[in-house]
């Protein structure tokens, strides 16, 4: 079914682009998210949309998918201007979209999830056969009767793609599709995408992984601050030149820490087991790790394999029964809360900056109080030392180049990258001897990410033990001494970062690491 369509798509589409955007502008109040953006999408090409967080990529594709309406400008479908009132109109034309965050019902089967979006004429009974057909045609290996909660992120993504393909789209938009995949799963996705391209479909591929874009895409349009700053052939560029276009300046290289002596073990986790906090959560099973002073210990893994549960156990937001399960600088703290662990000079940075690391409606100085209220001088007889809090906020803002519109604004007014610099800087300026940080540069622009990684390396050079949980393998290989992989709530034995390949880590991430829970 899909193949038969491919032939008529291939003809005559070189002259007029399948989908084009002409001088499109989108304003939210006084903020201009897209400023006269122009883009052509031809049949049979994979077109990359590159840009930092907040560059306006999402706004643009939301307009192409009928979620947002443009303030000015035209969307052309095969040369004719169109108005997309809602996603149904976009789908009817033949525009499909795979979102970064899956919208699947965990307790329903693959077939049921797919049937939910099919036109009402199609009977539920026909769904499994159709899905099997698509799955065969694109080598997806989907089992229609499996419940979604038993599937990996890669399989879930293939459901989302299959859902789109059932409607036989001519244009497929993919938003950061590899962010939740192992390298092997990403490889498989690329094969599927190549096949879709060969059928004459147009693919708009949003990413900030430059290597990926170079490998896969024929053209790239780069957005910065809502404007198109260039369209190029990514294969003719280097990752550095692409990044420079995205950021608008040359990025400084992170200096890896020089050879340094490792100190004694400062953070020791032994046989930590915790039941899953919620249905479909992840239970931690016999997790062990030891981080020495002066060492950066990386925890790699595909999202949803116990990272947040592990972080909560390390920070003391979830308590373990066994005090010796977690030892900070010789003190058994497994059953002690986060305040006790901070008093032992440990620092923590959770993944979610808005609402977890920081309270969005509170000012930056109040957010200093949030994690430092037990430090010396921050409170006196129950009263907050507001002056000290403001000074400390000021210090974080200057040392970490946090861009804010006012001297002490509410946290929510900061952009993602700036707030991340603030919550990381807040902990680093306390000069912790143990730092646990989850996704330190998630959704942060290239320049901010470099600042944060450099700060972590500098802290480590001072003798702190740092544990980083990250899904970004490039990041882990760049700054870690040793890397372990978390999969299904189990942590692998750590491997030295300098003599390990991405493939080895990738296999562990997919749960194929020999015994699976070696220690």
């Amino acid at each position, binding site marked *: 079914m899909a193949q038969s369509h491919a032939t008529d798509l291939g003809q005559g589409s070189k002259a007029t682009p399948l989908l084009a955007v002409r001088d499109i502008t989108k304003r*939210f*109040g*006084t*903020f201009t998210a897209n400023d006269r953006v122009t883009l052509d999408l031809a049949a049979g090409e994979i077109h990359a949309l590159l840009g930092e967080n907040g560059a306006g990529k999402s706004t643009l594709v939301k307009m192409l998918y009928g979620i947002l309406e443009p303030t000015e400008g035209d969307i052309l479908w095969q040369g004719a201007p169109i108005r997309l*009132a*809602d996603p149904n109109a976009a789908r009817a034309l033949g525009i499909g979209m795979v979102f970064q965050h899956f919208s699947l019902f965990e307790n329903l089967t693959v077939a049921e999830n797919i049937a939910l979006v099919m036109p009402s004429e199609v009977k539920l009974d026909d769904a499994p056969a159709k899905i099997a057909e698509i799955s065969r045609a694109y080598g997806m290996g989907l089992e229609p009767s499996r419940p979604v909660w038993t599937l990996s992120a890669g399989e879930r993504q293939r459901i989302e793609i299959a859902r789109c393909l059932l409607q036989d789209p001519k244009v497929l938009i993919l938003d950061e599709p590899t962010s939740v995949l192992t390298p092997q799963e990403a490889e498989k996705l690329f094969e599927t995408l190549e096949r879709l391209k060969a059928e004459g479909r147009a693919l708009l591929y949003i990413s900030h992984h430059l290597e990926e874009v170079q490998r896969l895409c024929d053209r790239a349009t780069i957005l910065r601050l809502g404007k198109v700053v260039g369209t190029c052939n990514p294969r003719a560029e280097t990752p550095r030149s692409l990044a420079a276009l995205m950021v608008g300046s040359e990025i400084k290289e992170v200096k890896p820490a020089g050879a340094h002596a490792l100190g004694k073990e400062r953070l020791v986790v032994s046989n930590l087991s915790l039941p899953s906090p919620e249905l479909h959560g992840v239970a931690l099973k016999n997790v062990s790790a030891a981080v020495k002073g002066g060492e950066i210990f990386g925890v790699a893994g595909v999202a949803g394999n116990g990272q947040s549960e592990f972080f909560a156990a390390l*920070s*003391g*937001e979830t308590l373990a029964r066994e005090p010796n399960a977690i030892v900070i600088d010789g003190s058994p703290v497994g059953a002690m*809360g*986060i*305040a006790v662990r*901070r008093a032992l000079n440990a620092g*923590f940075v*959770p993944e*979610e900056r808005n*609402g*977890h*690391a*920081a*309270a*969005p*409606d*509170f000012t930056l100085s*109040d957010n200093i*109080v*949030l*994690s430092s*209220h*037990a430090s010396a001088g921050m*409170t006196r007889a*129950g*009263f*907050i030392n*507001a002056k000290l809090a403001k000074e400390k906020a000021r210090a974080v803002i200057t040392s970490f180049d946090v861009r804010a519109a006012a001297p002490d604004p509410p946290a929510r007014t900061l952009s993602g990258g700036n707030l991340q610099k603030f919550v990381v800087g807040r902990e680093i300026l306390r000069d912790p001897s143990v730092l646990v940080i989850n996704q330190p540069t998630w959704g942060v622009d290239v320049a901010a990410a470099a600042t944060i990684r450099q700060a972590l390396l500098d802290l480590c050079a001072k003798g702190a033990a740092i544990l980083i949980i990250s899904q970004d393998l490039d990041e882990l290989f760049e700054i870690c001494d040793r890397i372990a992989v978390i999969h299904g709530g189990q942590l692998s034995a750590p491997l030295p970062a300098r003599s390990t390949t991405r493939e080895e880590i990738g296999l562990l991430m997919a749960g194929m690491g020999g015994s699976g829970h070696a220690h």
Partner: protein
Amino acid sequence: MRIDLEARPKRSALREILSPVVALIVAIVIGGVVVAIMGRSPLAAFDVYFVEPLSQSYSLQAIAVKAAPLILIAVGLAFCYRANLWNIGAEGQFIAGGALGGWLGLVTHDGAYQAIGSWWILPAMMLLGILGGVLYAMIPAALRVWLNVSEILTSLMLVYVAQLTLDWLVRGPWKDPQGFNFPVTVNFDPEATLPILFDGGTLHLGVLFAPIVVIIAAVVFSKTIFGFQVRLAGSSPKAARFGGFDDKRIAFAAFAISGGLAGLAGIAEVSGKIGQLLTTISPGYGFSAIIVAFLGRLSPVGIFIGGLVLAVTFVGGEDAQIALKLPGDMTLAFQGVLLICVLAADVLARYRLRFRLGGKA
């Protein structure tokens, strides 16, 4: 047509301060329409409700006497509401405080237990009043914290338990034996009655509790780590746990403050204004205080002003029953309209309405 709520790009402090004022004006206009439909002159009603109470010395005192319990209760509620705990049972906590504190007034009646002097009676009554409110608030707090039962339902239902218990006590064991079978208790001794501030007036000492509590609460909210915890727990519970604050302790503390202040308001009303226990000791202060809390934007100073506004409607409502033969329920209806207007104005201060023609939801 589709109506969208669109977040305003900037929050404006002026807009947020003005929104309750606009809400009050809109509520008055709606009230005027209702009065007109009932065949009375809206202008006369406005005069009776909002002008006359402010122009007579005795009614100004009556406003203060009515505003004090509203303010005390609402400041306590602000602690709960800021922490995202929806205590709507302040009426019950008010009655529990009034009853437990009033019990001491009955026990010490006619000079009993006053051999060591009578100086201790009033302070002890106030403390018992607070204790009664605290203990009564601990029931929904414990159910909420330990068993995750909605505090909205439990605190509300306990209001009726308190009302009926007081009714039974006053008709039964605590009834004045020489009261010709009226459902009232004996009158408290002067030693168990909060003194009147000015001769011939109605202002009693308990009225002063309100401004004192407002000042303390304002300081606690803005300057102390405890106030910070309460605000944080309500605004970002996950961040509060990350900060190392114990959300269970915060919940108990917020309920205790709320119940304690409602109990204090209860005993001040019983000891200062009524002077004995009756089957009903509150004209719905505990519920009206919810409106006061939101009218004051959950800030102690705002609540002080909001309490005075609501007290005007209580006093004006009493006058209107006499002058215009308007039913007493008109006051409660108006307060309800006011609450809806305040909540709507809060939303409109942060969002704006966008009407889209032809769009589908």
